[in-house]
């Protein structure tokens, strides 16, 4: 049989040659910085996809784990703290930090039913934000922690000007995450996740330890979200203020998973491309274009494309659930149509 590239390989392949195409395009048409954001959100959403897509548990506080990763990474590496472990150890340590945070939240809450669990994760997200904002001694309050170090491959530390280095670093890390999750998907653990999503009671009867399996999904998702948070802090060279990790971010990640295809890696990639593309390419460029024409700005609320963000997220969720419950790129193992 002839080998044909699947959707994941196609997407990654196109992403890999995008900077080369940009070389011949005028600077106004450059999108690689925004596409870097797509990679970051794809990592975050792949994490959310484990807990929501595979294990069927709605998590509305994924941004909190991103915040924990970002602040954890900053505290481990920043020069105002005693640790200063450096970029690579720091970014790898965000994984166990996130997993631990996920474990601590998951341990008492995972036996709750679906909608209650969703609300607990939402509440956790708000509490984390408030704590980060109010514990100024450690977190510098609304200033955020900076400067957060960047990687230094070949001597000097990268800056924001090293656009394409960041681009390929994020792409490479995304590929590593995809490969890891693909293997997880086909492992015993992955099948256990699908099984408890379809029928918890039956899985228990088959000898699956439901609590432990749910906990692993929760921790894995939290670890990936923390990893994405650490990367985002590094590229911005600051954790930013705690409200950068608010409910809106969690919902954006949820939009990516639901619109793209819940439980499908290729779906999450497409979803990230669509949602982040709308959010940070189409809206931003449209705002700039309207301002250039002199009809944008604050004079009319409807004419500023940024003001349509909530509406787009909301419509994406409502329409996806109604019209395409399995997303744009459904998983190969179809979910039970309930």
């Amino acid at each position: 049989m002839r080998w044909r590239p699947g959707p994941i390989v196609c997407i990654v392949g196109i992403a890999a040659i995008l900077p080369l195409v940009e070389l011949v395009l005028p600077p106004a048409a450059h999108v690689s910085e925004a596409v870097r954001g797509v990679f970051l959100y794809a990592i975050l959403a792949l994490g959310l996809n484990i807990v929501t897509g595979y294990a069927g548990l709605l998590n509305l506080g994924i941004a909190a784990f991103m915040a924990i990763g970002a602040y954890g990474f900053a505290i481990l590496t920043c020069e105002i703290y005693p640790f200063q472990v450096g970029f690579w150890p720091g970014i790898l340590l965000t994984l166990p930090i996130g997993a631990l945070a996920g474990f601590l939240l998951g341990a008492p809450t995972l036996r709750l039913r679906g909608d209650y669990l969703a609300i607990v994760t939402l509440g956790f997200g708000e509490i984390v934000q408030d704590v980060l904002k109010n514990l100024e001694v450690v977190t510098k309050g609304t200033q955020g922690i900076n400067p957060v170090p960047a990687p230094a491959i070949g001597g000097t530390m990268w800056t924001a000007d090293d656009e394409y280095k960041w681009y390929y670093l994020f792409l490479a890390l995304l590929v590593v995450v995809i490969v890891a999750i693909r293997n997880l998907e086909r492992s015993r653990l992955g099948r256990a996740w699908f099984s408890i999503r379809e029928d918890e009671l039956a899985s228990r009867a088959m000898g699956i330890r439901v609590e432990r399996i749910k906990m692993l999904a929760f921790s894995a998702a939290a670890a990936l979200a923390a990893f994405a948070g650490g990367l985002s802090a590094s590229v911005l060279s600051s954790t930013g203020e705690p409200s950068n990790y608010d409910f809106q971010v969690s919902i954006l990640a949820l939009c990516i998973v639901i619109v793209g295809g819940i439980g499908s890696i290729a779906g999450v990639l497409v979803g990230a491309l669509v949602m982040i593309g709308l959010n940070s390419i189409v809206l931003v460029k449209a705002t700039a274009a309207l301002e250039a024409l002199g009809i944008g700005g604050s004079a009319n609320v409807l004419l500023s494309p940024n003001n349509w963000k909530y509406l787009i997220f909301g419509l994406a969720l409502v329409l996806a659930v109604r019209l395409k419950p399995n997303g744009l790129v459904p998983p190969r193992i179809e979910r039970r149509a309930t």
Partner: protein
Amino acid sequence: MEPYEVFLQQLVTGLSNGMIIALIALGYTMVYGIIELINFAHGDVFMLGAFLALTLLGALGMEAWAPGWQLAGVVLMLVSSAAFCGSFNWSLDRLAYRPLRRASKLSLLVSAIGCSFICTNLGLFWGGAPMEVFAGGVAAAAPKDFPQLIPQYNLLGESAIRIVPADVAVLAVTLPLMIALVYLVKRTRLGRAMRAVAQDSTAAALMGIPVDRVIGTTFFIGGALGGFASVVYALYNNTIGFQMGYRAGMDAFTAAVLGGIGSLPGAVLGGLLIGCVRSMSDQYVELRWTNTIVFGILVLILIFRPSGLLGSTRREKV
């Protein structure tokens, strides 16, 4: 002020805000009771009600009216916001929730979250209306001042504790509504139909109850309560904004869970408790930790006593 006077003052504020929270919480608890959906958009429907009230107030120029007429204006705002929010909530059910009756509960919740975001955005657009009460619509996202239509003199005369007519107004609106609601649910044919659908919608349908219409009516009543609450909230707190629905919604949802979701007296008790917790925390802990405390209560109640204070423990159906 003596320490006990500070305490009593916070108690008055807490109870007044608590009654408003309770009114919103009733909307959550009714909808949850009947279709087990956390109607995420409820808080945002409440927010839109406040915007409608402010629009009416500005369009009719109520600020310039004589005091007696202003009272009539308040009644007009209450009725219009209630009708508007009720219809809006009914439409949400018709368009976004009813088609998903057979889908999984999580799809329903995701749809509700989507509706919440859409409503938030509508509030942002509304705030950009080119009217004087919206500051000409220049800063659409900015919080809006809601004029004090109810006078602010102290009913207790020279006492250090202030009870203003707005406190009385809150009670005068919320209490009769709660009594009417309990009467409706416990004593009328419609109420019996609602309880039947809540228990077992299939059996109710077999008994000839028009299930979808009963659910729609429940959404209408819940939304209308939110509409009443929005006007009272705006008159009492004198500022509204397009993001207030999330905050108020979370307070009210916490109240509903605290009291026992699905239980009407529970929602009222929870609302009063949350109102008091908020005002006490503002005074005795720190303003900036208040939200954390409310969310902490929400999380702890869900973990340790998901049935709430007055709710009944019901086994989940397989």
